[in-house]
């Protein structure tokens, strides 16, 4: 713990944390794209020792929230999480009653006794404890060691997700606008000898655009979580299937629009 006195980010201190990742002996051959099934068997393949693999050590995973994995062998990273854990467990593990120094209400308050531990806490405390436990159990966020470009990589991942979200939002907008446009031209020549009534095609087309926006949103979300789970292994999944699917669906709906507009021009 003597290392914590020297702040590693002071430029004058003897050692400065170099902001570079250790270059790993990558298991990948340079050109190949591997889609690891990382999200399915995360527990079995979790990287514990990050010094060998060169990947990020996941500090708090979903199933390992009680015991965080010890930090990697780099001595510069002293994690505050371990300190917190030892502090909170001090009363339950080895402390006798005489050595209890926790006061209930600030300085000058009475010490905590056995009665207080057996007493049921207030409902607000219980609710907040429950929410914290729920969050730490089921949150899809990973807690990672902040070194190198890890924070930046995950922020870039988030930006890509937001770009997908904006794409789907503009699809929704187009759908609403198409519905409005087709509703505007209800008055026209009678549609007696016509295969379809063009003014009725607005709602299905708008609905199709909205369904497409929903699909794009979920594509972006799944891409984000796949990327998040794989990035901590030092790999990057190039998205190929989602791009192909997006292209095909967009082409299909544009063709549908084109055909409908052509039919309209023929009937007018």
């Amino acid at each position, binding site marked *: 713990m003597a290392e914590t006195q020297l702040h590693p*980010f002071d430029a004058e201190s003897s050692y400065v944390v170099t902001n570079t990742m250790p270059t790993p002996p990558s298991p990948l051959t340079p050109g190949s794209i591997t889609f690891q099934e990382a999200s399915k068997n995360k527990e079995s393949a979790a990287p514990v020792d990050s010094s060998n693999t060169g990947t990020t050590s996941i500090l708090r995973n979903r199933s390992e929230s009680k015991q965080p994995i010890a930090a990697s062998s780099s001595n510069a990273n002293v994690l505050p999480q371990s300190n917190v854990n030892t502090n909170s467990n001090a009363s339950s593990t080895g402390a006798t009653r005489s050595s209890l120094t926790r006061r209930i209400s600030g300085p000058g308050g009475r010490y905590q006794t056995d009665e207080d531990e057996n007493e049921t806490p207030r409902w607000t405390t219980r609710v907040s404890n429950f929410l914290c436990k729920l969050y730490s159990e089921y*949150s899809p966020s990973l807690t990672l060691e902040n070194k190198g470009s890890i924070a*930046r990589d995950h922020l870039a991942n988030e930006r890509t997700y*937001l770009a997908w979200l*904006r794409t789907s939002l503009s699809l929704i907008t187009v759908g609403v606008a198409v519905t409005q446009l087709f*509703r505007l031209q209800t008055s026209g020549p009678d549609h007696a000898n016509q295969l379809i009534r063009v003014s009725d095609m607005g709602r299905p087309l708008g609905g199709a655009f909205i369904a497409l926006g929903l699909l794009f949103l979920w594509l972006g979300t799944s891409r984000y979580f796949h990327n998040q789970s794989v990035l901590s292994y030092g790999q990057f999944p190039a998205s190929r299937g989602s791009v192909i699917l997006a292209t095909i669906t967009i082409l299909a709906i544009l063709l549908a629009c084109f055909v409908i507009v052509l039919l309209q021009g023929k009937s007018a």
Partner: protein
Amino acid sequence: MAHPKFMGPRKHRLYRGHRARSLNITEEELVEIRARERTFDGAYWRTAMKSFSMGMIIIRLFTKSFNKIGIIFVAFGMAMLGISVLRRKAAGDVFDQRKPFETSGFWVMMTTGVTTVAYVIMFILIMKLS
């Protein structure tokens, strides 16, 4: 000029042992700060503002029957703005890299849930148009 009640704690906050005015930001920290600005000032706000402007256009320009859809757009933009503010607060510290970094999976799930609800409501509204 903000109220001193709100300026107080921030004025005396220490970054790497310095106050904000006498802090020399290193290159690595600048890179990190830029990445956060791209994400929180760029991407999140752009999404919210796009939704706001679309809601305004729909309410002002389209026919009366589309008013509800415009209101949904505006509400979605406000939700995105709130999520972006909370996400920014939870983003962690640039200056102390000993603190662990928490990825934004939780916020992505929140955003996806909110957006899905908004889209489904819009789908129902459009399909209910006579």
